[in-house]
């Protein structure tokens, strides 16, 4: 049973069959989709300009990931190898469309600020990679755990970026003003360039932490 894992080489986990909890935990930290696998960078950089946007985008992606993992895992013996990618994309696109309607029904304002990036979840490589590398080869329960872990890891990472960018770029957090009115906003932080700066800083912190963990 070959499980294509995209973990970092320094992992010192035992190689025996991982439990369901392991499948869940790995996405949160060891194989975090953003900080370790560096997948799905388009929404990570584009819609993480405020904490609310980041959270909404993260949750939308996590929902699509969960639902597509469930369906792919259920249908894994029904889908022939030759048409698997087309089938996965069809399934993913369906849930993205559903999410799009759901967000519109929740708040027009939110849908406006996420804009075109909701539809772009279809081509988020994180989701396709989990369908191809995991859900199509594992049982339903394991696929659900994997999707939940990866999804929450993605939400966590996006939130880390969104929070920093909103605090520095707009001087607020979830819309609440944090600083006195004479605080000069770092406008660059909510522009695309700020996304790269923040991502670089978080990657640095994450890798330092991992190195320390491995060294101790």
């Amino acid at each position, binding site marked *: 049973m070959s499980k294509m894992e995209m973990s970092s080489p320094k992992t010192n986990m035992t190689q025996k069959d991982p439990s369901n909890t392991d499948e869940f935990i790995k996405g949160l930290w060891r194989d975090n989709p953003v900080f370790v696998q560096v997948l799905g960078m388009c929404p990570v950089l584009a819609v993480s300009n405020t904490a609310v946007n980041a959270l909404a985008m993260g949750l939308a992606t996590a929902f699509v990931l969960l639902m597509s993992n469930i369906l792919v895992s259920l249908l894994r013996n*029904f889908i022939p190898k030759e048409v698997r990618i087309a089938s996965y994309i069809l399934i993913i696109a369906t*849930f993205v*469309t559903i999410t799009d309607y759901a967000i519109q029904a929740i708040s027009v304002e939110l849908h406006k600020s996420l804009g075109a990036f909701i539809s772009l979840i279809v081509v988020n490589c994180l989701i396709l990679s989990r369908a191809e590398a995991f859900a199509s080869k594992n049982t339903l329960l394991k696929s659900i755990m994997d999707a939940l872990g990866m999804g929450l890891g993605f939400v966590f990472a996006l939130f880390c970026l969104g929070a920093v960018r909103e605090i520095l770029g707009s001087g607020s957090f979830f819309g609440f003003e944090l600083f006195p009115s004479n605080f000069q906003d770092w406008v660059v932080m909510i522009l695309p360039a700020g996304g790269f700066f923040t991502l670089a800083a978080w990657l640095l912190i994450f890798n330092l932490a991992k190195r320390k963990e491995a060294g101790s």
Partner: protein
Amino acid sequence: MSEAATIPKTNSFHMIRAMAGIGALCGLLIVLTFEGSKPRIERLRKEALQQALFKVLPGISETKTYTFRDGAFHPANDGEENLVYAGYDDTGNLQGIALEASGQGYADVIRILYGYDVENQQIVGFHVLESKETPGLGDKIEKDENFLQNFQALDVSLSGDYQDLKNTIVPVKSGTKSNPWEVDGITGATISSRAIGNILGSSTLQWVPLIYQQKSDFEQDGNE
């Protein structure tokens, strides 16, 4: 491509079955979601528009939708175009007309709603319905207080024969506004604020004389 020769071919029937099956299932899911969320989405959109109407026409308590066809304004039915929104106060007097307008901004098309006070011949309110302008720079058109002050009493007086505007609304450089029909720009959002001035300019040129000439279309209904 040598792989293809060694791997036994899947029966094409199975492939078609999988694709068609998944396609049908997905189609069903989408239709169900669409139908399920449609009433709520439409209601939210209407509410958002109502809120915007109350914002751009200060002092109104009731709105009615009209459409422009055959040279006059008629109460609008569903699905009609060329809509204008009339706002009335408590006693049913016409307070103003809200109009939608759009034009190219910096990033994409900007859609706005503005309120026209027929009595005083002024623009009295402004709201951005849709914009993808750069956050922190171009989106100042929605937040910048100095800029929004432009639209508290923007002059759109008509010339003597009511056929044309005396002065078209024009955008000017930030801080140089000297006439009541000029729109003061924003430093750091030059293109976006300029675009708003131009959108208003062309939209008022087209609609304001029409509305003023036909203003009885709205009043009759309001006093019923």
